[in-house]
C-alpha cells in the first residue's frame, strides 16, 4: 500500500542527460541506468535497492528459522531443552569480533567516500581478518568440542536409578524443571554403537590423565561417561544456573545401561531439537560470514572489480563496499540474536 504514495507526476531527467552516466568510460551503449548514480526520484542507485530487498528476503529466511526455534522451544517438554552447554566466553569473544568488524567495515566505506585509499585497505584488511577469526573459532574450536561431548537421555521410568546424577529431587525443591540427560565424555559405548571408536579414544585419554583404567566395563551394553560438573554434583546449588566460565569436567564416572536409555548422541544436530536449531542457524550464519569474506577479499584485492576500480571510478567502488557492508552488518545483526538465544537463555 505504502508504495502507492510514491505515485506522483514528478518528471525526472532522462538518463542520457545525466553527465555522470553519460561520460563514465565503461558505461557503454547497452548499459542500464542508475547502476552508479542515484535515480533522482527514489534517491537510490539500483544495487542499494537490490541489496535491501535481498536483506528483506534474508529477514524472512532467518525469520523462518527463528520461528521454528520458537515453535520447537515452547513445544519442548521440560528437561528436553538443554541450556548452559555452550562456551559463553568464547561466544562473547566472537560476538565482540563481529562487532569490531562491523565498525571497521563502515570505516572502510567512509574512507573510500573521503577518497583515502590507504585507510580503506587497512580497515578492510581488519574486517576480513575478523571474519576469518570468527569462522576459525567456530569451525576449529566450538563445533569440534561439541562433537566430542556426549549425552544420554534416561527413560523416565528408569530415572530413579540415576538420581545421583540427575538430582531431580533437588531440582524439584528448587522449583526447576527436571533433568533427564547425563552428559560428559563417552568412555565406553555399547557394542556395535557407532561411537565405539570415539569412546576408546576418550578412554585412553582419560587413563592417561588420571591413571584410572576402570572406565571400560565388561558389560556389552553400557554407556560409561566421564561426567560434566552438573551431573557429577547435581545437588550443588551453584549448578542450578549456568556458569559463565565453563566448569571443568569431573573425574567421576557414570555407568548407564543401554536399556535405560531413551536416546544417546554426541552434541551433533541429531542430539535434540536444541542442537538441530543451533547447528542449522549457526551453520547458515557461518556460510553468510564466509560469503561476506569472499566478497570483501574481492573488493580488497587489486583486481578489476576490486581496488583497481578506484582508479577509474572510486564512487562505484564505494558503492560496492557499501552494498557488501550492508550485507555484513546484517550478518552481524543476526548474530546479535543468535548469541543470547543459544548461549545465554
Amino acid at each position: 500500500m505504502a508504495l502507492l504514495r510514491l505515485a506522483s507526476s514528478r518528471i525526472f531527467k532522462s538518463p542520457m542527460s545525466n553527465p555522470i552516466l553519460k561520460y563514465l568510460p565503461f558505461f557503454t551503449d547497452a548499459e542500464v541506468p542508475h547502476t552508479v548514480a542515484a535515480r533522482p526520484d527514489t534517491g537510490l542507485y539500483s544495487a542499494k535497492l537490490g541489496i535491501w530487498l535481498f536483506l528483506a528476503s534474508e529477514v524472512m529466511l532467518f525469520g523462518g528459522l527463528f520461528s521454528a526455534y520458537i515453535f520447537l522451544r515452547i513445544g519442548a517438554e521440560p528437561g528436553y531443552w538443554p541450556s548452559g552447554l555452550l562456551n559463553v566466553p568464547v561466544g562473547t569473544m566472537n560476538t565482540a569480533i563481529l562487532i569490531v568488524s562491523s565498525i571497521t567495515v563502515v570505516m572502510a566505506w567512509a574512507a573510500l567516500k573521503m577518497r583515502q585509499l590507504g585507510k580503506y585497505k587497512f580497515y578492510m584488511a581488519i574486517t576480513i581478518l575478523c571474519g576469518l577469526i570468527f569462522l576459525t573459532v567456530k569451525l576449529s574450536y566450538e563445533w569440534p568440542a561439541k562433537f566430542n561431548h556426549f549425552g544420554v537421555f534416561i527413560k523416565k521410568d528408569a530415572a530413579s536409578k540415576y538420581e545421583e546424577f540427575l538430582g531431580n529431587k533437588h531440582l524439584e525443591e528448587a522449583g526447576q524443571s527436571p533433568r533427564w540427560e547425563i552428559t560428559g565424555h563417552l568412555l565406553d559405548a555399547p557394542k556395535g554403537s557407532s561411537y565405539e571408536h570415539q569412546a576408546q579414544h576418550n578412554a585412553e585419554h582419560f587413563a592417561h590423565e588420571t591413571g584410572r583404567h576402570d572406565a571400560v566395563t565388561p558389560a556389552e551394553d553400557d554407556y560409561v561417561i566421564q561426567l560434566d560438573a552438573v551431573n557429577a554434583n547435581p545437588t550443588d546449588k551453584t549448578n542450578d544456573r549456568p556458569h559463565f566460565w565453563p566448569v571443568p569436567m569431573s573425574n567421576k564416572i557414570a555407568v548407564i545401561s543401554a536399556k535405560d536409555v531413551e536416546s544417546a548422541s554426541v552434541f551433533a544436530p541429531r542430539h535434540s531439537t536444541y542442537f538441530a536449531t543451533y547447528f542449522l542457524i549457526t551453520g547458515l550464519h557461518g556460510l553468510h560470514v564466509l560469503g561476506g569474506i569472499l566478497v570483501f577479499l574481492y573488493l580488497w584485492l587489486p583486481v578489476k572489480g576490486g581496488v583497481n576500480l578506484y582508479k577509474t571510478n572510486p564512487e562505484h567502488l564505494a558503492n560496492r563496499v557499501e552494498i557488501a557492508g550492508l550485507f555484513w552488518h546484517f550478518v552481524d545483526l543476526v548474530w546479535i540474536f543468535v548469541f543470547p538465544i543459544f548461549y545465554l537463555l
Partner: protein
Amino acid sequence: MSTIATADVGHHGGTAPHDDHHHHELGFLQKWVFSTDHKVIGLQYGVTGLAFLFFGFLLMLVMRWQLANPGQAVPVVGEALRTIFGQTVMTDNGALTAAGYNVFGAMHGTIMVFFGIVPVAVAGFGNYVVPLQIGAPDMAFPKLNMASFWCFFTSCVIMMASFFVPGSAAKSGWTAYPPLAGIADLEGGNLWLNGQTVWLIAMVFNITGSLLGSINFITTIIQLRAPGLTWMRLPFFVWAQFVTAFLLVLAFPPLEAAGFMQLTDRVLGTSFFMPTGLVVGQTVAQTWAGGGSPILWQHLFWFLAHPEVYVLILPGIGIIAEVVANNTRKPLYGYKAMVYAIFALGFLSFIVWAHHMYMTGMGAKVAAFFQVTTVMISVPSVVLLTALLLSLWGGAIRFTVPMLFATAFLPMFGIGGLTGIPLAFNAVDLFLHDTYYVIGHFHYVVAPGTIFALFAGVYHWYPKATGRQMNQFLGKVHFWGSLVFINGLFFPMFLQGMAGVHRRWYDGGATYELTAPVLHWNKVMTVSAGILALFQLVFIFNFFTSWRTGKKVGRNPWDATTLDWDTPTPPPHGNFDKPVEVFRGPYEYSVPGHPTDFHPQSQKS
C-alpha cells in the same frame, strides 16, 4: 553481490539512438544461451516453462488413464514408460504402480506450480514484457537475471534427474508433509541419492532462482521507469508483476528454511519435523530423537504456498487486463481500484495460509482468524474480476484469439474462485477438505484460469517477440477445443467431491463403496483430458511453424497503447530505437476527439 553492477559491455542498442560504431554480432552462445538480455532470458524461461507444462500434463494423462482404468496397462506407451521410469513406477506389463501414481502426482503438482506456471507467467512474461512496458533498456541487473535463469535451469535438471535415482522421484505430494516425506525413500540406505532428498535440493535451487529474479523485478520497476511513467500510468501487467515479485521475495525464504530443515532431518537425523516416539513398521524409529513438530512444516510450507497460488494467478490477471483493454478498445474500468485491490490481495495473502490446515486440529480462535482473513481476501478478488467484467461494457470488442482466451478466463476463474468460498469456512471444509471438490476448485483457477491467461499472453505478444502472427484459424481451433474439454475435465470433479471422492487415490475410488455412483465420471474426465491434449498439439504446431511462416507484422499489430508496442519488432538489444518518454495513462483507447481509436503512451499529442 559485487558483480551485479558491472558494466555490461559490448552490445548494440540502448537508450541512445543507434550507434553503429559499437555494432558487432554476438556468437550463438552469448546470444541465445548465456545471454543477459531480458528478452532472451524471458524466452528461455518461457519455452522451458511451456515444455514443463506439457510434461506435467503428460504425467497427468498417465495418471488419468489409471484413474479411469485402474490397474490396466497404459496403452501404446506402457512398455516404453516401463523402460524409462523403471519398476518402482511401472509394472512389467506397463501399468502404473501405486508408488508410481504417487510419484507422478507429486511431480505433477511440483512441476506445474514451480517449473511450469511460475517460470512462464512470472519469469517468462515478466522478463520479456516488463522492461518493454516501462521503457527500460533491460532489467536493472542483467547478470543477476542470467544467474537467476541458470539457477532455475539447474533446478530443472536436478528435478528431472530425480526420476532416475533408485526408488524414483519424490512421492509424498507436492506438499511434502513430514513425517511421510521425512521417512520416504530412506529404505534403500542412500541418504542423498533418493527421490525426496533430490526434490529438496532441486527446490532449494528453484527458490534461490526465484528470489534473485524477483529482487531484479522490483528494482527494475522502481528504478527504470521511463521519464513520465509515473506509478499510476503503469500498465496493469506491471503492477501485477510488482506485487507478485514481493510475494516471492517475502514468502519463499521461510520455505527455503523449511527445506533445509527437512533436508537435515533426512541426512543428518535431526528431528525438526519428527515427533517423539515415531513407530515405523513395528519398531520405534531410533533414527530420530524426537521432539519435533510435523505441523511446523505445514505452517512454513503454506506460508509460502498460499501466496504462491496468487503468484500463479496475478500475472495471469495482468495479462488479461492488457488483452481486455486492447481488444475492447477502451480503458480498463476502475484501474485505480484494481491497483488497490491487487495490493490488498498481496497483503492479505500472507495471513490466510492456515486455511489449508483446518483439519490439523485448530481451536476456535485461530480458526476464526484464518476464516475471517480468507473470506476477506475474496473481496479484492471480486473487485478485480468485476472491474475486468465491467470493462467489457461499452467496448467495441474484437474477438481476436488472445481476446477469446481472455473472455473465457473470466467465467472460468469465476467458477474456480467461487468454489473457493465454501472451502474458506472450516465447518464446510470439514466435508470438502481433500476431496475432488478442492481439486476442482484450484484446477479451475490454474488451468482454464492461469493457463488460458498464458495462452492469451502467448498469442498477444508472439508477434512482438518473433515478428510474426500466429495462425488465427488454428488459434481458434485450439481455443474452442480447449474450452469445451477442459470443462469436461474439471467440472465433474465437483460432483465427485460432493459424493466423497478423495484426492490422491491410486484407483480413483474403486476400493470404496460410497464412491461407486460417481466413478463413471472418471472415464468422462479422462477422455476429456485426452482430447484436450490433442488440441494442445494444434497449439504446439502453430507455435513452432508460425515462427517461420506466420504473417509478418510491424511494430504495433494490435494498435496498442503501451510502450512494449513502441519498439522495433522484434526489439533489438537495448530495446528502444529512440528516447522514450511517457505522456499519459496506459489505456487511452477511443479517447473522444482523438483521430485514431488508440493514443499511445509515448505520443506527445
